[in-house]
């Protein structure tokens, strides 16, 4: 017969005034956001009439409204009895809300949107009523894609990138071993060796495009030490005569991709090197000494004692190299733009070219290419997540 009445604990009671005021503020902010603020209104308020870009101030005002609404919503929630009773269950969601929402809108949802675009024919435009102008075509884009020779060239080049880019891992290890010494100034050497990674890929691309230039690039200069001599012609000017003409690496269909990959390796090796240098720092000296007692030296020591301890560094190095290889875009855009005749295209660049390059505007087709690229990447992402999951299980 225990029918006790649970008296509401004052600590857990909903503070009505707090919730009401916060909800009101939120409603007003959302109302402003949804219907009052428009680009034309802000433009009129600024009185600038087309002279200045009204989009930016409009956007900033909208963001402020949104922030006020979010803050008010949080304040309202913290006033609720539900929240007060079970803080530990609610709090993480409040901390997550903005970041997660933002990430879902800009990163997660677009993945599915892109996949759905790939079943349509669309040029990215809306008609005057704001309605979508595309049409549903089912698997048509994929059927065209699998008959497209350019797609296979790009795919082949992607595989080339993946395979050759992996060279960055052993070369990075080798460089790290070379630099893992204690001599004066070694720190500066290490950071100078890391230099190429800090520079933008566009700049690296430009540097190498210049270096490869057959007329006055670095490579042709070195070439001429072996194959050319400078002669004075009839006019008295100095000209260069070569027994074998220097190769035009980026102008040749067969070598363009290799030239770009070599350029891409430069910063990637630096990255792998720094990963291994940090790893080598943490190699336990006990195990090395134990190995020495067992008579391990040089390569044997590296293979059996040091490399197993560098496993985490190797894993990260492989992951970033795979991602770097599949993301290669900047260098192709600066060095060859996929040419000559599409021979140095990769999926990433081909997709861009089809969707927005040169006014093609094939959104559906571009999305189909992007989906294929995504599926390739998904293999690696799944593997990486699986590894992380196993680590988490072991850790807890």
């Amino acid at each position, binding site marked *: 017969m225990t029918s006790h009445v649970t008296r509401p604990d004052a600590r857990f009671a909903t503070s009505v005034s707090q919730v009401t005021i916060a909800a009101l503020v939120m409603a007003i902010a959302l109302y402003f956001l949804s219907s009052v603020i428009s*680009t034309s209104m802000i433009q009129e308020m600024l009185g600038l009439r087309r002279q200045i870009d009204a*989009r*930016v101030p409009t*956007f900033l005002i909208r963001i402020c409204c949104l922030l006020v609404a979010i803050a008010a919503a949080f304040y309202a929630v913290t006033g609720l009895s539900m929240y007060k009773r079970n803080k530990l269950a609610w*709090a*993480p969601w409040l*901390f*997550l809300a*903005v*970041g997660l929402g*933002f*990430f879902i*809108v*800009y*990163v997660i*949802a677009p*993945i599915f*949107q*892109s996949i759905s*675009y790939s079943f349509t024919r669309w040029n*990215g435009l809306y008609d005057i009523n704001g309605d979508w102008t595309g049409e549903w075509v089912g698997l048509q884009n994929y059927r065209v894609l699998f008959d497209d020779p350019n797609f296979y060239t790009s795919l082949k080049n992607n595989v080339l990138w993946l395979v050759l880019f992996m060279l960055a891992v052993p070369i990075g290890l080798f460089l790290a*071993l070379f630099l893992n010494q*204690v001599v004066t100034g070694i720190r500066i050497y290490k950071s*100078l*060796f890391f*230099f190429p990674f*800090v*520079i*933008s890929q566009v*700049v690296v691309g*430009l*540097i*190498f495009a*210049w270096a490869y230039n057959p007329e006055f690039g670095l490579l042709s*200069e070195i070439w001429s030490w072996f194959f050319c001599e400078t002669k004075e012609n009839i006019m008295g000017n100095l000209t260069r005569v070569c027994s074998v003409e220097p190769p035009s690496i980026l102008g040749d269909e067969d070598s363009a991709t290799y030239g770009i990959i070599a350029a891409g390796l430069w910063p990637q090796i630096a990255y792998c090197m720094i*990963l291994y240098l*940090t790893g*080598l*720092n943490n*190699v336990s000296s006990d195990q090395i000494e134990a190995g020495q007692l067992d008579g391990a030296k040089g390569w044997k020591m590296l293979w059996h004692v040091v490399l197993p301890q560098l*496993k*985490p*560094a190797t894993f990260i190095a492989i992951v970033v190299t795979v991602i770097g290889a*599949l993301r290669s*875009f*900047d260098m192709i855009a*600066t060095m060859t733009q996929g040419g000559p005749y599409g021979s140095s295209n990769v999926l990433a660049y081909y*997709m*861009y070219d089809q969707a*927005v390059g040169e006014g093609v505007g094939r*959104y559906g087709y*571009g999305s189909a290419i*992007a*989906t294929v*690229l995504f599926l390739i990447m998904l293999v690696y*992402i799944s593997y990486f*997540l699986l590894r*992380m999951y196993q*680590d*988490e299980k072991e850790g807890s």
Partner: protein
Amino acid sequence: MFPKPIKTRSRAAQLTYKIALPVALLLWLLPLLAIFMTSIRPASDIAVGNVFGIPSSFQMLQNYGEVFAKTDALRYLLNTLLIAVPTMLLSVALACLTGYALAIYKFRWALPLFFLFVAGNFVPFQILMLPVVDISVRMEIINTVPGLVMFHAAFQTGFCTLFMRNFMKGLPFELIESARLEGVGELQIFWHLVLPLVKPAIAALCVLIFTFIWNDFFWATVLIQEDSNLPITVGVRTLNGEFVQQWHLVSAASLLAAVPPVFMFFIMQKHFIAGLTLGATKG
């Protein structure tokens, strides 16, 4: 230590190593050095084939001055700064919150959501490209600096969350437990207890994100077409088209684009490397 310290080897080996070091560095940075030499020589040198020798006259100031005078390089640099700094602040701030939620609270969704951030971070850009353009068009911020910042901040939140969450997992959890028992609110724990402890992570992330965004090219080409809003990476590519065969100017502009991240790297080296190598040592 591996390999064997050079000090324990013969004098000859030590000497060889000390000579090999600068030679290797010279070879490694040869392309950079060559482009620097090109950027300080007059155009006439390149025309007569003096590409790698000593310049006939040193024109550093003239060449770099010409880049600023003839082009919008200054405008591009400013735009990049306006893109990189707000992105950095926004994504690091958001990641402090999300990382805290995923590291400190034990709820069923913590691991799946963490993996969502990690997975999103590795996705190829092209699968996001068209929908992001579409969102920006509808929000009327395509072709503007804030439009680019919005995307970058959202995308970088993924990487920053990965980093922050792992860093916060390493904090002593008993500290937070005891604060809770004392009745300290969740927000207070975050602000007064956890944030001061993750300052090194914040610094590392700031340097990294700044450099990543400074060097971004793809999203800038996709989301910005208006010349006055372009960042320097795209600007340099455009200049490359304008200065046909004027390699001394192209190289000067390229180096200009590379200076700020390099400078940032040198002053914040420790944080930069700590950020990049996170996870490479544990496990």
